[in-house]
């Protein structure tokens, strides 16, 4: 995977997953900021709200706050959202909430 074109991770520039709550609802059809994402690189399992989010990219880049690996990349191509979830080992509904259908 080529990562050179993505903004370099830097805490000062990053927002967090709350900032893409609306985009995530567009993609998944439900609230996802409290969903738990497991990083495929380091195994950290945290709410998507806590990811480091970069919106200056052409699209949205969500990185693991523990190891800075890419978790989710969303690129909007014309009217289509292209979503890369390969950085996630798992994506789970928060405790006490059913997994969205």
């Amino acid at each position, binding site marked *: 995977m080529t990562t050179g074109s993505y903004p370099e991770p830097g*805490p*000062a*520039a*990053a*927002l*967090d*997953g*709350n*900032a893409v*709550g*609306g985009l995530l*609802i*567009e993609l998944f*059809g*439900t*609230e*996802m*900021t*409290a969903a738990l994402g497991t990083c495929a690189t380091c195994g950290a399992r*945290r*709410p*998507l*709200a*806590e990811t480091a989010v970069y*919106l200056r990219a052409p699209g949205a880049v969500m990185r693991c706050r523990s190891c800075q690996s890419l978790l989710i990349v969303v690129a909007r191509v014309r009217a289509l959202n292209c979503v890369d979830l390969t950085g996630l080992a798992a994506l789970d509904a*928060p405790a006490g909430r059913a997994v*969205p259908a």
Partner: protein
Amino acid sequence: MAGTALRGRLTWLTGTVRDVTQETPTVRTIVLDLTGWPGHEAGQHLDVRLTAEDGYTAERSYSIASAPGEPVAITVQRLDDGEVSPYLTDELRPGDELEVRGPIGGYFVWTGAGAEVGGRPLMLVAGGSGIVPLRAMLRHRERIGSKVPTRLLYSARSLPEVIYRAELDSYGRDGVQVIYTLTRSQPPGWAGYSGRIDARLLAEVSWPAGDDPATFVCGPTPFVEAAANGLVAIGYPATQVKTERFGATGR
């Protein structure tokens, strides 16, 4: 499929500005009449969409400033080079229309569940306009009659830049302690704090970690990093500190 509202989807709604309040010289609260709003929780945000005559659109997220059950309100800080905020703070008038969608977010939310007597205390840490979603939580706490011990640590550059100051000071009678730190300039005789938020200040004013406080930190990214790291340094479990960051282009 026109007019078909899909369950679970965000739908753009056209609201009407009911009222505007100037909070500080650069910050304004906008109250909306919104038909079809599904209701919200304290801490959630919404998206605003502006459309120019040529069809160009710009979207921004703003924290909801009002409590659940109150009319939807947002509080907007004017960014001089902003594409959206100067319109909202300078141009928008009562009666004007505004497109919004929401509510958004399920993580940075205080529902008030467990906020009865003996419930977890509330620890709120705000930087600048990061006060907005925390103010919704304070109003919600009051509306549901919760007495959970609550502390708000609010970092602002100066006293005139404190948003909702009169309202925040009025909470003192009700088990809410509001602690200001003014980082750039202080009025003569200021007896409050004047330093940036760090572990030392947090250790002085926060609930002990052992009280298991529900903790919310909101502000610009560098502020949130400093405050969250400080709370972890004084023993707060990282998983218990809920954070929301905004940047110059966001809330």
